[in-house]
């Protein structure tokens, strides 16, 4: 039995660029914005980085393929750089590479960086892309909102909710994230909205309206990880430790087998169970202080509350409306605004989530600081509900 990653690797520095429609910035600017903050935070020189992981999803856009964009932007001293891509779980995948390298003893200090430059397409929404030479022959020309919107129809049917009630709960999800995003100076969307505004917005993909969809943003986020011993050498008193890092990709069951009914994300359930086990979490509802989940769309966040084991089956609608996941609720969710309002530069998103957990655990979250959080969860869902990659990570403070 593998011993897992729990308490083997420390995060000693993090950085995150301002997210948004960064007409002013190319990928190089975004990367440097995040890395500079992280290096200063960690108090380490750039040349102490032994290896780096670069996460980029849309390499068709201006970032490009391979290790080179990061190696060149930072003028790294020819240390190994690995480019990773796992759809919307790309940022967490980059972190996983860096963390495993440190745990393996392959290097002392590793850097994980995710970056995405989406706003150079000339149109709204995500860039168009091929699904594959065979897949294009039979799969619908679907979009991300259309693929996730289907969760709503299946979830409502499965649990006997009217679309009216479900839409209200989804509106609460988005309303809450706008409230949170308004307190975040780095967030893409800082405006507050009303429930009525959300409900009356133009439809993108039924039943999702504009406010049910996250921002399409430019941005970068970065983590510097090392061993607990080096973290202490660097003078860190409170140290954020990686408690679990789990990844679960679909194997085709959801898309092609009758056992999946379309109302949940199967891989999120598997990744969460494994992460709780790796971190030694027995009762996630009691132990998790805050979470950043993959709220690409309001309905995604809502069903994730059940997939992560935090709401009972069919009850997320009520828990959301009861404010359980609001800032003041039992388990605050997306206190930084989430994908919805902080924004969703795909390759950076997993690391952006870790950034917020890191700040909160260290008490450095400013206006949005929660009271004494001890354990934070991040979750990504790359792909679409019937074909995806879920990641769940847990972070906590080192036992002193």
């Amino acid at each position, binding site marked *: 039995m593998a011993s897992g990653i729990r308490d083997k690797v420390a995060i000693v520095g993090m950085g995150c660029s301002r997210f948004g429609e960064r007409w002013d910035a190319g990928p190089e600017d975004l990367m440097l914005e995040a890395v500079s903050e992280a290096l200063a935070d960690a108090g380490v020189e750039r040349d102490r980085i032994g290896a780096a992981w670069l996460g980029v999803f849309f390499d068709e856009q201006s970032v490009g393929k391979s290790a080179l964009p990061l190696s060149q932007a930072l003028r790294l001293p020819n240390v190994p750089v690995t480019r990773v891509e796992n759809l919307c779980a790309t940022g967490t995948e980059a972190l996983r590479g860096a963390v495993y390298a440190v745990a393996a003893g392959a290097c002392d200090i590793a850097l994980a960086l995710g970056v995405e430059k989406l706003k150079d397409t000339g149109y709204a929404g995500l860039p168009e892309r091929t699904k594959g030479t065979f897949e294009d*022959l*039979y799969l*619908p*020309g679907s979009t991300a909102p259309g693929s996730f919107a289907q969760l709503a*129809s299946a979830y409502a049917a499965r649990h006997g909710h009217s679309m009216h009630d479900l839409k209200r709960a989804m509106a609460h999800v988005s309303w809450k994230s706008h409230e949170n995003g308004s307190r975040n100076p780095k967030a893409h969307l800082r405006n507050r909205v009303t429930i009525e505004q959300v409900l009356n917005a133009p439809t993108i993909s039924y039943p999702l309206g504009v406010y049910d969809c996250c921002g399409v943003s430019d941005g970068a986020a970065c983590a510097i990880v090392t061993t607990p011993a080096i973290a202490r050498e660097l003078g860190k008193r409170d140290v954020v430790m990686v408690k679990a890092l789990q990844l679960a990709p679909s194997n085709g069951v959801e*898309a092609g087998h009758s056992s999946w009914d379309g109302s949940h994300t199967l891989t999120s359930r598997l990744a969460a169970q494994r992460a709780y086990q790796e971190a030694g979490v027995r009762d996630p509802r009691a132990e998790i202080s805050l979470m950043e989940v993959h709220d690409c769309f309001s309905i995604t966040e809502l069903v994730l509350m059940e997939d992560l084991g935090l709401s009972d089956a069919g009850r997320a609608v009520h828990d959301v409306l009861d404010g359980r996941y609001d800032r003041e609720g039992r388990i605050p969710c997306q206190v930084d605004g989430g994908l919805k309002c902080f924004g969703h530069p795909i390759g950076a998103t997993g690391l952006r989530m870790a950034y917020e957990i890191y700040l909160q655990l260290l008490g450095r979250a400013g206006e949005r600081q929660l009271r004494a959080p001890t354990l934070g969860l991040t979750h990504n869902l790359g792909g679409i509900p019937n074909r995806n990659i879920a990641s769940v990570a847990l972070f906590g403070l080192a036992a002193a």
Partner: protein
Amino acid sequence: MGSRGITSVGTYVPRSRLKRSTIANATAWANPAAARATGACAVCNWDEDSITLAVAAAGACVAPEQRLQVDAVWLASTTLPFADRDNAVVVAQALALREDVRTLTSGGSRRGATSALLAALESAASRPGAQLVVASDRRAAKPGSDQELKYGHAAAAVCVGQGALLAEFLGSASLAADLVDQYRASGASFDYALEERWVRDEGFLKLVPRAIGAALASAGIGASDVSLLAFAGPSAVARRIAQAAGLSSAQSALAERLEESCGDTGAAHPLLLLALALEQCKTGQIVLLVGFGQGVDAIVLRASAASSQLAKQRPLQHQLDGGVDEPHYLRHLSNSALVEIDWGMRAERDNRTAHSVAWRRRDEIGAFVGGRCRECGTVQFPRARVCVNPDCRATDTLEPHPLAHSRGRVKSFTEDWLAFTPRPPLIYGNVELEGGGNLMMEMTDVEPGELAVGTSVRMAMRIKDLDRTRGFRRYFWKAAPVAARGS
């Protein structure tokens, strides 16, 4: 030699009906005659063409379990999408016919279907298998034209052979005459039609009775014995022809019925009329089928007892009675590529087809054949190397399993206004097929608000994507609500 004739028929009339009053509302300012037109034209969705129409009609004509008995396909149309790519082979593949099937395309003539039918009937004398004759047309007409008011889109198919017959072939006559009543130059989009009165007097009324007389003589039948005239031309002319040829009683009912509820369907029209005739006639009655276009084919058939089943079910009449009103004239023009809507940058997506992939996976893509695991029985699409059942996952155990005839159930769906489609919104969802198989499918012939989780769907081969850069189009199966036929 045993008797030979028609062994089965099948038709397909697209779901949308464009009322002639809708056309008149948009065009009567330019063409006042439109204001007097009544009835409706059956019109294609954006994703239908002469190939998909033909597949739908042929699928209704030949039951899945009889497909392997078909040894020839004759495809007649004046509007086939490919000038060089055997359209009939695309149809044969979609129907999952045998690899050694013979295909022949009869193009460039509104009389192509009757000529193909005659050739098939003659060939049936020496061939034991079933021969599929399918005719389809999706003719375009300029806005404001008389053709726009007259034309409809449809397909019809018949199987020809020996044995149990719906109608026995008794005799025929043909006549070739280069009377240019209308024409369409190669590469042109629209027909050029000459004065109707000249066509009637010099064409229909002089040529058709001669061919009829010769056909009746070859069949040894008297004119007064003909019960039904299936004449592919105007109903008003049908009455005059019946008089001139000495046929009995009112003879314009079939033509009138199609004019009113579907329009003139070009190359498909003779077989569509024949299908309607066989639904209406009694055992032993004589049907006279006449195709017209640079000449005449006249074919004499006698309804057999088996046609009484068709008369009971009347599938074509249900299709004609069904249909859904298309209230948007401009949407019809867009569906027909007669007006170019600005779809924005998302429509710039490159739909280049990897033909080597399409060939490698031809039965999956071309005929919607999935796989069934011989270990666990799980049906699945696509047909991967390893079984998708999480409790099985056996390797190389999937055997071909047809899915094109399956009914399905909607598991989840959306109406997507962001995705590009020539007919927004793009409606798609996860579908579970009866008998197994799960996949995300595009939906067609459905309006926003009509779908629900649990909606029953059927499979329809349609255009999936148009590649405007390279002039190619690719096909795949879509899910259409079962109830949406309007029946």
